[in-house]
């Protein structure tokens, strides 16, 4: 074996290993969506565990041999994709390169669905403070969100969740790979600024004389507000 294939990466692999590795490469080449380890295991007639190990080894090999493609685990399966380094070449070629750039409104809505799913449109709207019907329609059309059920409550509101396409878009294998939401809770500074901005008590309880410019200076010694959260 090793004599026949001096450059072979898995120099020590036996005939069975070689066959499995080659079959996995062939199947991964033809799949149009990430190939789950379960399906791949079934096709190779080996255990899921062994399949996962095989794919991980292959991925590492492509990495080590500095290929222009990668084998990655995305949205619950394995797929070939181009190495990110080579984006400049691929973007020159692929017609709809970077077509899927999302607007801020879409991203914020998607973030809420991702972290709070299942969630209704009304609940999302309550968080964003704006109507989200249009954004949600676009996100559904693009396949990033989908109906996942109905609220058992009286309204029977449709509940939404993110899709495998969303995970693919972000290059994630599963939702738990998203950074924890706790990382984004506003810092004490921001919280304080918001609290200060919404002080209900007047600055010095003296409204301005109409039309005058003075007197409205923000009082420096604002009295501390009790933090309601603590």
């Amino acid at each position: 074996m090793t004599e026949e294939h001096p450059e072979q990466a898995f120099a020590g692999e036996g005939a069975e290993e070689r066959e499995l590795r080659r079959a996995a490469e062939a199947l991964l080449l033809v799949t149009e969506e990430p190939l789950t380890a379960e399906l791949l295991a079934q096709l190779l007639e080996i255990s899921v565990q062994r399949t996962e190990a095989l794919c991980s080894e292959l991925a590492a090999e492509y990495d080590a041999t500095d290929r222009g493609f990668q084998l990655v685990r995305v949205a619950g399966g394995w797929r070939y994709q181009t190495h990110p380094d080579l984006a400049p070449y691929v973007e020159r070629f692929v017609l709809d390169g970077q077509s899927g750039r999302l607007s801020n409104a879409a991203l914020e809505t998607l973030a809420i669905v991702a972290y709070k799913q299942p969630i209704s449109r009304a609940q999302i709207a309550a968080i964003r403070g704006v109507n989200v019907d249009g954004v949600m329609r676009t996100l559904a059309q693009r396949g990033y969100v989908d109906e996942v059920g109905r609220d058992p409550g009286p309204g029977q509101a449709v509940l939404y969740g993110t899709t495998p396409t969303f995970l693919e878009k972000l290059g994630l294998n599963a939702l738990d790979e998203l950074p924890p939401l706790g990382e984004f809770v506003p810092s004490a500074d921001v919280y304080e600024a918001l609290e200060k901005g919404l002080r209900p008590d007047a600055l010095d309880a003296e409204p301005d004389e109409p039309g005058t410019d003075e007197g409205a200076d923000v009082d420096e010694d604002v009295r501390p507000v009790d933090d309601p959260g603590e």
Partner: protein
Amino acid sequence: MPSIRVPRRGAAYPRAVAVDVATPVFQGPFDLLLHLILQDQVDLYEVRLSDIVDAYLAELERMEGMDLELATEFLLIAATLIELKSKRLLPDDGDVDLDDELALWEERDLLLSRLVECKTFKDAAVAMATIANDAGRSYPRLVGVEERFLGLLPDLLAETTPDDLRAAFLRAVAPKPVPRVHIDHIHQIRVTVTDAVAELLDELPRLGRATFAELTADLVERLEVVVRFLAVLELYKQGWIDLQQPEALGALTVVWTGRPDELELDVDDLGFVDAYDG
């Protein structure tokens, strides 16, 4: 969606806050509030509340299949803002009802937590955009199987007739039933603070003075009254009118004092422009 333009500040405002950014476009009231408080560090006292309330009314207008709960939530937040602001605008007579005070704090805390939540997801969205951009540099292979295998695929149209196709088309274009609560009555009462100000500017010079009850006699909906009240506060703050309320909880009288002398401004300069593109 109707974008909110922060109007340029007229000289009538005590402090020319840095809101005169060219034409920043905001996504609704939370976005606007967060921007004003965090970026511009504006105190609520200085915020043109009509912008925010109008933004809420605009959102109510845009709702298609929205439930009443959300409509109520929006109104509650708008009302909280009005209350917070009016408390700062009006003279403190020292005669504070403790229950009211506590209720206001509670509402304030609700609004605060909403803003914090909104800000949290805004920041999460920024992180997600970065992740998506990184992922977007890799392109998956979507080529599929080679043509020599296509013969293996079963003929999926074997049992399909042209009539099946027609039926499928009609099914596809049929309106999808969306369960919704009709909130037409909310549409009907949509009125902006800007409109209300314009009406007052039309009425008050002729009337000279009027009680608030008289000014709102023709209004049916509570929301309209709230908006009218906000318009009165706006005019008061800008020095067009005087307010008299001799006894607590007594009738509020609005007195037209005319255009503030020192301000040679027309209506547009005072910022009485539409706060959003409807």
